[in-house]
């Protein structure tokens, strides 16, 4: 997997956050990842990923609060 880039969504207007995150995910090649930075646990986002991209993504918490959450989101390599 290549080095992960950072997408800090704390400055993105709320309505644009999820589209931006999914656009970023969709631009990843298999095996690539990015680190999502947020100011709360993005669990609702994970549910959306599970619904729309089941089996295609990896989700690993790198930091879990109390001020900042970092999650590495990867596009799984095709087996």
């Amino acid at each position, binding site marked *: 997997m290549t080095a992960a880039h950072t*997408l800090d969504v704390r400055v993105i*207007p709320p*309505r644009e956050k999820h589209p*931006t995150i999914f656009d970023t995910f969709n*631009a990843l090649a298999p095996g690539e990842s990015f680190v999502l930075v*947020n100011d709360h646990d993005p669990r609702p986002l994970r549910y959306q990923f599970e619904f729309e991209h089941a089996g295609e993504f990896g989700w690993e918490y790198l930091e879990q609060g109390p001020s900042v959450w970092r999650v590495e989101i990867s596009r799984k390599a095709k087996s």
Partner: protein
Amino acid sequence: MKLGLSSAAAPDAPLGELLEAAARRGFGALELREGDAHGITPDADVGAIGEAVRRATAAGLTITGYRTGGAGHDLALARLSYTLGAPILLEGPEDLAARIARARQMRNAGAAVAIVLRGESVVQDGALAAALSSPLAWDADPRVGPPGRFAEALLRRTAGALRHICLPGGGPETTLQDGMGVGDLMRRLALAGYEGTLVLAPSTTRYRLAWRSWLGHRGGGGCGSKVAETPVRQLTTLAMEGGER
């Protein structure tokens, strides 16, 4: 990419308050602007500057730049840069060529210096400055044009010279930035692997009270699952109380 705060967000806050507010909001970096109440001036005592760096580090923050437009104290700025361990962010009113020349002299004196770019000619100016080996900072004002489009061209033409971006807005102004391309900017920076700093600053002094209020509270607008804590209606009221620049 590291997210930071500009002292312009709390220009009347002493350094301790600024550090506390930035850390509470989860920022990792701090840009100091000359003239704000943080107490760091080009001619400040070396011990005082060192103490500021120590306090910032203890708060989990990196001082990421010292912004100045002032002329006539370049040797003091050079000394400040290497004591802070941060670049001088050189903005106008001088033209680009004059600032490139100044930056070169200050680098010869041991300083790290980045030229601040802004406006519609940012890509051309950036390409020129980068060709002359100058690190770059960019004021990515969405009101000038779609910042994501500028970012992509700037990153492509400046080959890693872009180290620092200031985004006017964000924070309590986030709800006002729908459709201004901030999400596109962040997406493109992420995909380009931008590893510099992105600092937030008020877009205008009209929002000074809104920023003060926002920096005094914990939490904030979420990932679509939470609403921003300061609704636009309240922000407008606060802005009116703050007055225009």
